[in-house]
C-alpha cells in the first residue's frame, strides 16, 4: 500500500482501491446475509398442522359443560358429534361457567389441529342460551388404563394452533401465562411436538379436575406423568396427582 492509499474516513472520497474493496465487501456481505438468512430460516421449529382462523366466526349449537374445562358438544355439518374446548381470545379462560350442561349457541372462531378442536370466543356475550334444538347426549368417561407418559407440558390453546409454533422453550413464558390464566393444560407426548401425528392429551388431577396455575412452572419442560388415561367423547385426558408429575430436565 503506498501513501496515496492511506484511508482517511473524513475525506470526501475514498481511494479507488478502497472503493473497489468496499464494493466487493458489500456484495460479498449482502450475498452472505441472504444465504445465511435463508439457511437458518428454512430449518426452524415446525409448528405442526394447527391453525386459528381468528377472523372466521361461526355459530355452533350444542351442549356447554364444564368437564373439566369449558367444552361444547355439538353436531358438525355432517352430523357427527364433536367435542371442542371453549376458550377466550387472550391468555385467559372465559369468565363463563357451566356447572351443569346447558344448551347454547356460540359464535366463535375455530382453532383446529387435525381432529383436535377448540372454539375461541371473542366476547362472553357470544354465548347464548338456546332452546328447542336437538342436543347430543353428555359423554360418559371411559377409562383407557394406567399409563406412563413422557412429553412436554404445553397449553392446549397455543399447541392447537393459536401460536405457531406453540411449544418449545422460547414459548415457555407464553405457556406459563396461559396456564396461570386457567386455559387447558396438555401433555404433548411426541418427541417432536410439531409433527402432524403428535397428540396431546389434557393433563388433569387424579379426580379429573384442572391442576390450574400450580403447573405454570412446568410449562415447556420435559416431564414424565404416571396416571390414568380417560376418554370423554373426542377428548383424551390423563389424570395424575401433582406428585406423579416429574420434571425430567
Amino acid at each position: 500500500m503506498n501513501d496515496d492509499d492511506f484511508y482517511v474516513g473524513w475525506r470526501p472520497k475514498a481511494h479507488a482501491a478502497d472503493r473497489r474493496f468496499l464494493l466487493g465487501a458489500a456484495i460479498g456481505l449482502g450475498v452472505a446475509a441472504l444465504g445465511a438468512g435463508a439457511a437458518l430460516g428454512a430449518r426452524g421449529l415446525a409448528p405442526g398442522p394447527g391453525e386459528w382462523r381468528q377472523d372466521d366466526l361461526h355459530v355452533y349449537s350444542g351442549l356447554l359443560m364444564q368437564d373439566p374445562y369449558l367444552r361444547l358438544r355439538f353436531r358438525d355439518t355432517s352430523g357427527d358429534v364433536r367435542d371442542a374446548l371453549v376458550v377466550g381470545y387472550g391468555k385467559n379462560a372465559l369468565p363463563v361457567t357451566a356447572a351443569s350442561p346447558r344448551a347454547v349457541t356460540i359464535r366463535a372462531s375455530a382453532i383446529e389441529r387435525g381432529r383436535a378442536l377448540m372454539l375461541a370466543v371473542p366476547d362472553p356475550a357470544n354465548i347464548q342460551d338456546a332452546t328447542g334444538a336437538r342436543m347430543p347426549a353428555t359423554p360418559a368417561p371411559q377409562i383407557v388404563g394406567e399409563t406412563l407418559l413422557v412429553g412436554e407440558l404445553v397449553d392446549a390453546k397455543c399447541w392447537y394452533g393459536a401460536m405457531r409454533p406453540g411449544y418449545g422453550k422460547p414459548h415457555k413464558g407464553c405457556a406459563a401465562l396461559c396456564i396461570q390464566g386457567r386455559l387447558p393444560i396438555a401433555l404433548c407426548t411426541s418427541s417432536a411436538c410439531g409433527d402432524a401425528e403428535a397428540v396431546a392429551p389434557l393433563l388433569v388431577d387424579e379426580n379429573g379436575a384442572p391442576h390450574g396455575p400450580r403447573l405454570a412452572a412446568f410449562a415447556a419442560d420435559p416431564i414424565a406423568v404416571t396416571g390414568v388415561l380417560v376418554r370423554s367423547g373426542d377428548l383424551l385426558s390423563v389424570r395424575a396427582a401433582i406428585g406423579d408429575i416429574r420434571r425430567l430436565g
Partner: protein
Amino acid sequence: MSATYKAVQWTPAKIGYDAVTAFGVLGFVASYIAAGISAAPDAHPSEIQLAMRALGAAAFVLFTVILLIGPAARMSRRFLPLLYNRRHLGVTCFAVAATHAALSIVWYHGFAQINPLVSLLTANPRFDSITGFPFEFLGIGALAILFLMAATSHDFWNALLGPRLWKALHMAAYPAYALIVAHGLLGVTQSEPSPLHAAAFGAGAAIVAAAHLAAGLRERARDRIIAATTADGWLHVGAPELIPDKRARIVDTGAGARIAVFREGARITAISNRCRHQGGPLGEGRIIDGCVTCPWHGFQYRPEDGVSPPPYRERVATYPTKIVGGEVFVHPHPAPLGAVTAPSITGRS
C-alpha cells in the same frame, strides 16, 4: 474530534455504509422469513414468530461482524474503512436486538392480565438448571449493555468520559456477545430439531475468538521486530531512512508505553502511539497536511506539540528526540502535555 458535536456528520461514504448495512439486515430478515415460509408452505411458523427469530439471528450475525472488524483491520489496512463507521453497526445491532426483544415480549408475554414485563421476569424461576435456565435474563443483560454502548457511541461521550473509561465501557461488547451466545444456546436451540442454529452460535463465537487470537499474535510478532534498545536512558530507534517518509516506527519503551517516531523529510518527531480518541495506533498512521493522522478514525495531531489543529483540542504526549552518529534516539519520558518539542533534523531530506 471535540470542537462541536452533531449526531452524525453525513458523508457519501457514511450514507453508502448505512445503506449496505440496512440492505444486509433487511435482506437477512426477509430471506429468513421467506425461507421459513417456503420450507413448509402449508404448515409454516407464523410470520411474527419467524420475524422474531430472524431479528434475533440478525442481531447475532451483525454483532459477530462488528467484533470481527477490529481484528480484520489489525491484519489488513483494507478493512479500515469498515472500522471508521463501526459505531453505526453497533447502533443498528442494538436497534435490531431491541426489536427482537420487544416483539418477543409482546407476543409471548402480552395478551394476559399480568404486566408483560412482570411475566418476563417471573415466568421461569429455574435458575438452578442449565437446560431449563431462564435464557431471557441473558438476553436482557446483553440488551442493556448494547443500549449503554449505543447510547455512548458518539464522540461526545468519549470526550466526556475520557478515553480510558469510554474504552473500558465499550469493552463490555465481549461479555455482551458471550451473553447473546448463551441466550441462543440456552434458549432457541434447546428446542430445535436441526443442529444448525446451535452450530451457528458456536461457529460465530469460535471465529471471533480465533480472529482476536490471530490479530494478537501478529501484534506480538510486530512488537518483537521493533524491540527498542537503550543507550544513556534514550531508546535506540535506528537510522532515519528506516522510517518511511511521513510515516513512523513504533518503539516499545518496555514500560507498557509505545512511542511513534515520525519522519517528515528531514524532521524527526515522536508522539505517543496511543490516539486520544479510542486508543488507535498513531504509529500506523501517516502525516497528512503536516499532522499525524490516526488510521482508525482520522483524528489529527501536530507532531511537535501533540495537539489537534484548531478548532479541535485533543492532546497526546510528545517525546524528545535526538540524532547521534546518524542514528535516531527517543527519550522515554514525555514532555508536558501540549508543550512544544523541537524536532530533530537529520541533515538530509
